[in-house]
């Protein structure tokens, strides 16, 4: 029994690892190809199957006039917008989540769960249609094509995630901890930041990671709500996708765009390994 399970376990893990890695490997070799080595039949190994070149990568830093996309500035824009929006979402979302987890609210038929669902439900609406009102809204307050405007919209995108994860998290943190802090002379705010917050770091890490991911990979709002001043990475990369699909530079950009998030993955894993995620408190 045990042996079979171990065998199946490693078999499954191997299969999944191959599945996860395969497209990345494919992207990696493709990123060194050119038109002919993509379109002249399937090739795999550089120097053996095809003559590798760095054009796919060079495109990413060349200026458009030279046929590149120059992702350097959008890269930092994306980092800035994602991190700021995530931070604001986490702060506001955590506060709201704390309130929803600890206190009871009642306004007519609306109770805590309904408020939580209201937060989460903001993610149900298809972005296509919401983009138009957002456009008008940001236009009215003169925030179109600005980093700040994008951050405002991303907060709507990300705060629901933060609220969802943090409500769940706080529900697992015994409320007696907060009560003890109050009894020990903290007012509710002090209790929150001196006691609850330090014990919520794992939850904050997970929520933060989801916020960063969902902010980083958004394409649609960044696409509709910016013109020339501000460009975000996904929009810039997708702009590569012209009638002659440059599979090599799209591959290179896919690898480049996932890179900063791998750092995030390592941070999250570190907290996972410590085993104190999700409110293991008692």
């Amino acid at each position: 029994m045990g042996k079979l399970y171990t065998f199946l376990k490693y078999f499954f893990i191997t299969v999944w690892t191959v599945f996860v890695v395969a497209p990345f490997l494919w992207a990696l070799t493709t990123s060194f190809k050119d038109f002919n080595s993509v379109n002249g039949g399937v090739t795999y190994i550089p120097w053996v199957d095809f003559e590798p070149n760095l054009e796919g990568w060079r495109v990413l830093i060349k200026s458009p006039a030279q046929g590149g996309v120059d992702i350097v500035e959008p890269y930092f824009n994306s980092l800035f917008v994602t991190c700021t929006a995530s931070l604001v979402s986490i702060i506001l979302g955590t506060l709201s989540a704390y309130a929803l987890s600890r206190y009871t609210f009642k306004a007519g038929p609306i109770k805590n769960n309904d408020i939580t669902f209201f937060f989460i439900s903001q993610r149900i609406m298809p972005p296509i249609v919401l983009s138009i009102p957002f456009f008008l809204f940001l236009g009215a307050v003169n925030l179109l094509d600005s980093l700040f405007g994008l951050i405002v919209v991303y907060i709507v995108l990300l705060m629901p995630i933060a609220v969802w994860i943090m409500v769940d998290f706080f529900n697992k943190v015994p409320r007696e901890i907060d009560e003890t802090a109050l009894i020990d002379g903290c007012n509710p705010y002090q209790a929150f930041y001196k006691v609850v917050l330090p014990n919520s770091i794992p939850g904050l890490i997970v929520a933060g990671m989801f916020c960063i991911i969902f902010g980083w990979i958004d394409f649609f709002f960044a696409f509709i709500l910016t013109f020339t001043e501000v460009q975000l990475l996904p929009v810039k990369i997708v702009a590569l996708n012209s009638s002659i699909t440059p599979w090599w530079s799209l591959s290179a950009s896919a690898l480049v765009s996932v890179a900063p998030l791998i750092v995030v993955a390592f941070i999250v894993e570190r907290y996972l390994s410590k085993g104190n995620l999700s409110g293991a408190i008692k």
Partner: protein
Amino acid sequence: MNLVGENLSYKLTEELQLRKISFNFEKGKLYTILGRTLSGKTTLLKTIAGLLMPDSGSIRFEDKNFLEIPVWKRNIAMVYQQFINYPHLNVFENIAFPLKQRGLDPQKINDEVFKSLKLVGLEGYEKRKIQELSGGQQQRVSVARSLVKNAKILLLDEPLVNLDYKLREQLREEFKNIFVNGLSEESIVIFSTTDPREAMELNGEVIVLDEGRVLQVGAAKEIFENPKDLKVAAISNDPPMNILKADLGSNKIKFEDIEIDIPDHLSKLKDKHFNFGIRASDIELNDNGFEFEVELAEISGSETLLHLTRGNLKIITSIEEVMDFKIRDKVKINFKSNRAYAFDEVGNLASSPFRGSNV
């Protein structure tokens, strides 16, 4: 100057947790709130602490309206049945937390923390993380944290219930010393428990609580000797007192097919039908006694609990030694009727061995 509560009521959703509770706690005394799980003990303590706001009623302390003072300004301390500490702080920091919150100077904090560490017997553990301690040690830390504040009101919500038997015995003894002897004359200690023995041992003023009501208030001994009614009798005894429907005959008390002699203190009972109450410990094995069948035998600590049946009769007896019984064994028992209680048909105490008939 006392802590006085009047007509406190609290409602959670539709259910009443506290029903018009009043109390008057004096400084320098230990109070025990005895009640079963969900009887409202924790609610009452939290209300006193200020964590819950009663729907009606008032609490006054030192001539101030206590309800207007927020928790964090009430100068109270509380120990929970879960071992609540701050997981992100080590032992020292945990105990020092309330003092830092008060803004005391570091030297003073240091002294106080070590004093209370000593009191709970955790010297040398100050650098440990909370997660590295055993349950009992964790609870000692939270007790130390509550002591260090020198609070005017100390609330202990079943602090021992989550510990294993041995540890509980040991800590109970220690706590008694700490609370009874280690506290200043200025403090009020309120200890809640489900365990009547604990209440008796602590030997303070006992408040018996049931379904959000105060059933009886009195010294531990008084509650034990003269439980006001059947409910109190049930709550204040573990195992619960055996209650048997009995008839008073001429010189005999009859229940089912058993007849026993009337002891003196029951002889003046007015009613013919009454509830005969006898503690498990007041039933002894006796070869000349009545034959019962063992339904269940459990060993608890150094005693053996026997659940016995005879016809429709069901009783529990506890024997002060470990004995091996099998199910359906026959045993013979005798009732120490001079220690029996009588409750009238409504359930109020009619006569106790300590007070005689209360008419």
